[in-house]
Every structure is written in C-alpha cells, then in structure tokens.
C-alpha cells in the first residue's frame, strides 16, 4: 500500500509549491492529496488515512488548528503526523499549535530541504 501525504492550503500556489517540492517522493510512489479547506482536508484524512499532513491554518470552513485538534483527539487518527505550516509565526500561534498537539509547527516561508527531511523521516518511520 503506497504512502499518502495530504497538503491542505487555501492558496493554490502554496499547494503547488509543496507538491513540487515533494516531487521526488511522488516519483517513488507516494500519493499526494490536496485540499483547499478544512472540511475537505478532514474528509480526506478520514477517508485516505495519510501518514503525513501539511496543514495551513487560515483556511475556510475549518481552520488548521481545528482540523488538527479533531485528528489528534480521534483514537484512530491521532497517529497521523501533523505539520502545521503557517504564515502566522507569532508566539501565541506556536502555543496554539502545541495545544492542539501538532507534531511540528513550521512558519512560511519554509526551507524546502527541511520539508523534504520531515517527509523522509516520517515515511521511514511508518
């Protein structure tokens, strides 16, 4: 069964950027899903059970923190590796991320190599 990664961001360019950054993994057979709002993201998470989710915060319908909270409170989903990837880099946002038990809190603009490193580590683990 191929590994799955979800990219949730309301900005199409950002989704594209992340997708292209992770191109090498796609070539290795990793399936990448995308969502442009929180609800869709949650649907995909429940349906596809990805190993790793890159989650923006400011999204329509459900924001990233809310989605993260739902996932981490769900016994079936809580093992999914949640990366909050947001332009909101304030201290309060970091704390919020901790509260919803995100695994990693990253701010935009991000370092592509760091993203690649995270994916490699998570996929290796699973």
């Amino acid at each position, binding site marked *: 069964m191929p590994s799955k990664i979800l990219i949730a961001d309301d*900005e199409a*360019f*950002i989704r594209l*950027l*992340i997708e*292209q*950054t992770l191109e090498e993994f796609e070539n290795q057979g990793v399936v990448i899903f995308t969502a442009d709002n929180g609800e869709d993201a949650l649907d995909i998470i429940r349906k596809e059970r990805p190993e790793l989710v890159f989650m923006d915060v*400011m999204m329509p319908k459900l924001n990233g923190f809310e989605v993260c909270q739902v996932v981490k409170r769900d016994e079936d989903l809580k093992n999914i590796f949640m990366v909050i990837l947001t*332009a*909101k*880099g*304030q*201290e309060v946002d970091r704390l919020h991320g901790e509260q919803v038990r995100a695994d990693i809190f990253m*701010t*935009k*603009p*991000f370092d*592509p190599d760091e993203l690649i490193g995270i994916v490699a580590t998570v996929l290796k683990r699973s």
Partner: protein
Amino acid sequence: MKMGLNSWNKSITNRLASTFFIFLLLAVFLVGFIVYFRATQSLTESVFDRLGAVATLKEDSLNRWVDQQRLNIVFIAWQPDVQQRAGMLLDESGSDVDHKAAYSALSDYLSFVVTSVSDSSELFILDLNGKIVLSTQPDHVGQNHGSDPFFLQGMFTTFVQPVYNSPDTGHPTITVSTPLFNENKRRVGILVGQLNLARVDQIFLERNGLGASGETYLVNPSHEFVSNRSNIPQSGSIRSKGIDAALQGVSGKDLYKNFQGVPVLGVYLWLNDQNIALVAEMSQAEAYAPARQLALTAIEFGLLASIILAGIAYFLARRITRPILAITDIANRVASGDLSQTAPVMTDDEVGHLASTFNEMIRQLQLLYEGLEKKVAERTTQINQVNQHLQEEIAERKQAQDQLNVQNGYLAALHETAIGMISRLDLQDLFETLVTRAGQLMNTQDGFIYIADPGAKEIECKVGVGIFSRLVGLRVSSGEGLGGTVWQSGRPLVVNDYDQWEGRVKNLEYNLIRSIIGIPLKSGDQTVGVIGLAYNCEVDDAHTFGENEVELLNRFAQLASIALDNARLYQIVSEARAVAEAANESKSTFLANVSHELRTPLTSILGFARIIQKRLLERIFPLVASDDPKVQRAIIQVEDNLNIVLSEGDRLTTLINDLLDLEKIRAGKMVWRIEPLRIAEIIDQASAATSSLFESKVLTWVRNIPTDLPLVQGDRARLVQVVINLISNAVKFSRQGSITCRVMPIQDELIICIVDQGIGIAKEDRALVFEKFIQVGDTLTNKPKGTGLGLPICKEIVEHHGGRMWLESEPGLGSSFFFSLPINSIRPEDPTERPKNNDPGEPL
C-alpha cells in the same frame, strides 16, 4: 514622731547626766594632779633637807674619823717607849743588839696597834732620808718616800695627806705622818700611818634613815669611788650631774639621774679638806611614793563621789524633762490640728510656767482658727456666687460654641464633600454622590439631580432618591416645574408650600413635599443642571429651607460644579486615550495581518525560486551542452540572478520578522522565558550559528571569556539573537582581521563586548545606529545587507533585561559594541566551572 520624742527625752536626760559626770571627772583628775604636784614639791624640799642633813653628818663623821686617826698616830709617836726605841733604832751609833731589840719591840707594838687598835692599814717609820726602816708590812722596808708630801710635811709637823690613790695598792688612801722624836726630844724619823678606808665605807654605808634607795658616797677627782664599793663594778669613771658639780667645787642640791641612770634627788658637797666629793642621793620613785599614793587616794574617792553625783544628776534631769515632754506631746497634737488639748501644769517652776503659757497659746490659736473658719465660710459663699456667674457665662459661650460647631460641621461636610466629589470621575457615580451628600448636608433622604447634556433642549433627571425615585429618566424643558424653572433662571429657588405652588408639574403626585429647594449647577456662566432637595412632611413637617440652607447649598453647588467639570473632562480624556489605545492596538493587529499577508506571496516566491534553481542545476543546465560563451554567460547570469532573488526574499522575511518582534516588544506582548544562564553558552551558541559567515572572509574569531562568571537571568533565545546580530554586523562591516568577544564582570553587571577591526562608524552616526530603519554609511554606493531593525531590536531586548547597549568606534579602525546584563546572585554550582575564585577575567 513618738520615736523622735523618745530619743530627745533620752538625749536631754543623758546629756545632762553625762555632761555633769564628765565635768566631775575632770575636776577629780585636776584635784589628783594638784595633790600630786603639791605633795611632790613639799616632798622634794623635805628630802633635800634630809639628804643635806645626812650629808653634813657624814662629812662630820669623816672629819672626825680622820682627826681621830691623826690623834692616834700622834699619840703613838709621843709614847716614851716608842720614842726611846725609835731613838735606839735610828741611832746610827748604837749597837746592833740595841737596834735589833728596838726594831723588834717597835715592830711588835706597831703590828699590835694595826691589827687591834688603829684604823690604819699600815704603820711604818721613815728615817730622816725618807727610807722605810720599819713597817708593819716588813716587805716595804727599804722603800724611799723622800719626795712624798707626807715625808716632806711630816718631817716638821703632823700632816694628813687627803685622799689619794696609793701608788702601792692603787686604792684611795689617806696618809697621816708625824715627826718621831727620841727621849732627848731630837727628831729621829717620821711615823707614817696609812689609813684603812674600810672604815670610811662603814661610815657611808650606814643609811642613816634615807630609806631603801638612799645612799651616800665619796668620789675623788678622778671620778672614782673613794670607798671600796664591792657591790658596784669599778670600771671607768663615774659621772652624774651631782658628781660633776661637786668635783668642780660646787655644793648644792638637784633632781637628776645618778651614775646608774636612776632619777634621783641629790645633795652634793665638795670636801676641800679631804679633796673629795660627797654625794647623798635618794631615788625619786621612793621619794615621791607618798605623793602618788596621796593623789591616787584622792582620785579614788573623787571617782566614787562622781558616780554618785552623776546618778543624782540623772534623776534630777528626768524630773525636769518629764513636764517638758508632756508639753512637747501636746505641741505635736496641736500641730496636727487638735486644739482641744491642754498641757498639764505639773510644777510651779519655769516649766510649769511654760506649760501654762503654752495652754494660753493654744487658746489663742483656737480663737484665731474659729475666726479663720468664719472667713473661709464667707469666702466660700463669695466663690460660689462667682462660680455660678461663671457657669452662666460658660453656658452662653457654649451656646456660641455650638453654633460655631454647627458651622464648622457644615464646613467640614463641605470639605469632605469637595474631596469626595472631586475624586469621582465616573459621571453617574458623581451624580449619585452629589445627591447623597447634599441630602446628608440638609439632613434629608429626598433629593434629585437634573443634568443638561451639552446642546440639549431639555434637562434629564439622572438620579432621584426617596420620594423622587420615580423621577429618574424624566425630561423637562426650560421653565417646566421646579427643575425647569431653576435651569431657566440659573438662580436658587425655595418653595415652602409646594401643594399650592403654581409652577408645579401637575401630573406628578407630590403631596408629601413640605418644603423644596432647587440649586443650579454651573459650568462657567452656563447652568448645566439642578440639584433639588425636599423635606418630606411625613418625616419632618416643621423643617423648611431658610437663608442659611440656601447659602450652604449654593456653596455646595459651586463645589459640585467643579466636580462635574472635572469628571466631564476626565471622561473626554479617557475616551481620547481609549481611542489612542485602540489605534495602537489596531496598528499592531494591522502589522500582524500585513506580515501574514506578506508571507504567503513570499513563500511562493522563495519556494518556486528554489525549485527553479534546483531544476535548472539538476536537469536543465546539464542538457545545455553548448560551448557558446554567450550561453555559458547566460547560465551564470541566471544562477546569479536566482541567488539574488533568494537572498532578497530572505531579507524580506527577516524584515517582516524583525518588524513583528519590535512591535511586540514595544507593545509589551513579547513572551519572555527568563531563566538563569551562563553567558559563555549564549556566546558559543551565537558563534556556532554565525560560523558560516566567517568562511567567506579572512576573519578570525577570538573568544576571550573568563571562567567562573556569575549567572545572569535572561531569555536564552533572545540573548543569542542579540549576540548573533552583533557578530553578523561585525562580520558584515569587516574585510579582515579578527572579531573578538570579551566578557567582564564589573560591579554588579556583566559587560559583553564584540570588537571588530572593520570600517568603523563616524561620530555623527553613532547615535543613529540604534534607530529604526537606519543603516549608516553611504547607502547608495555601499549598501550592506540588512533590515535596519537588528540593532534597535537588540537594544530593546537588552533593556528589557535591565541592561544597557552602547558602542565605541573609530572610523577605519573598527567598532566595539557593548551590552551589559545585571548579575544574578546565584553562583555557578558546577564544580568544574570555578577553578579560580578571584580571577576577574583577562583585561581588555
């Protein structure tokens, strides 16, 4: 008092008795002394007389004895038998037989005389040449005495040589010589007798009634005893005042110490015939014994008499003091105020007179006292009258005082009101306070306040209490009702019969109002409100508002107006501040939002630029295998341009982050994680983070941090940020040389310093480097990369830690950036970190 009386009693009696006794004793001893003195005087005379008599007697005895001896010798010489035999013995022409016969006969005779009859110790015969021809001591025969006085004198007449020391025996002796004739009356020789002085002793040792110590003795001019005194050692010369005087030819009598040092009475005579001194003495002790005895007896009897007399004196004194004590006792009682006592008149003498005089004094005192009491009673009455008068005056004054107190109370209430009101800044709160205070001032529960909002046509009741509670929210227009009337006129109004007042608001039931007052509140000339108070006829039907109340409330209203203005101003200021704060807040929010909005496109730009770079390097450029220099140059250009895009994107990101940080610090929204830190770790962390910067330049990193530095309190990440910033700046503005980090503990601070050898900063620019968005130097030609926010942020961070930040620089030589951090009192506990306790670190 009783005690004192007793002691006085004892004292006076005893003093009398003892004084008397002492004088008696003195008299007794004086008598004893006089007796002794007189007796001694007469004894001296009598003893001297006796001694004189004895001395004369002895002198006579001696003279008589010597004369007797002379006669004896003469008698022997004149015996015919002796003359005949002497003639034969001394006749040189006679026969030997005759000589011998004469010698033998004379010798026998003279020996007989010496041993049995005469007091002579020796008898001898001298021939006319002075040679001994016969002696009772035969061994002396042949001795020549031709030059001795007794030979030379004795040749012609009977001669007595007075006492002298015999050259033979060395003892004092008297020699008697007389011419010796034969039967033919022809001088044939000299008969000489040496007198035996033992006989003299006999004479002088007879005491002759001189008592136990009385004695007489003879002394020759050589200060020797003439008589052989076997009981006294004959060593050296004997001397005393009497002996010395007598030996100088003076006779007399005196008191002196004898040759043995015993005080004596002495009589001394110089016996010219015998050439000796005669001394008769008696010891003073013995001579005066009767005098002492007499004196002692006198004293004994005197003492006995004194004791008896002292006893009598004591009893007499007691008899005299008893009535005096009785008077004293009474005097004491009188002194303590008991005038009913009289002293007993015990005797008819002076003491008795004293007692009766004293009783008279008491009677006088009683009279005086009664007079005084009467006067006191009169005075008391007078004083009571004055007192009553005074009390009346006091009552009057008290009334005045009460009035004053009431006014003072008003003033105090006003003062309190003023303070209470002026401190109220909330308007509704102030309105309520005004009504309450005014009610308290006028002693009523019923009151209200109307306030005109600025520019309004009506006034609104803001607060109503008591019977006016229904008024709240009611609006009245100018001239309507009491409130409207006062608002319109701007003058106080009192209505004492509200029911009948034509101006009343008809549709409101105010039947309870007895008397009502309205006072205007003014802001400048404008009436801005009305305070009203009423007396409720259910509570206080009699009370109405008079002039005093109007005056007081008027003043209250003036204060209230000030408070109202004050509160309104405060409200305006508060609103303005709230607006400013909101604006500030919205600026922060705006910045946060803007930064967020900026990051999203920035993310795309940077991300895609990296992907482009990656794709070009990995996939495109390898395929462009052209040797065309233009193509090669274009490839390099594309690479460079992409790098520029990336680095500028990074700079923009940093700028946004710095902007947010600065805003957060300034707005106090930064979250600080303060903990005890080792500064060395901070610096090492920063130097590690900036190590890559050094690789592109010829720069060396010099770390100069002493061990054993105290800890500091701080936010690790922020302080690392500060040091990174300083190191980055130093690298940025240096081409070569070294960048040095030093740490020094100075007093209660740590001073951290980053020193470079770069371009330096001009004097005029130094103050500007900590300003926002300012980068010094020629920004057009030589613009270094940076946001311009780094140093301002560092300064904010350091100041937040309680430290300072400053710089020293010399253009062309380099810059030193300093910052200080307060030292935490905690010392490092790691034992490997404190090798030297007193090391202050290396000097700069």
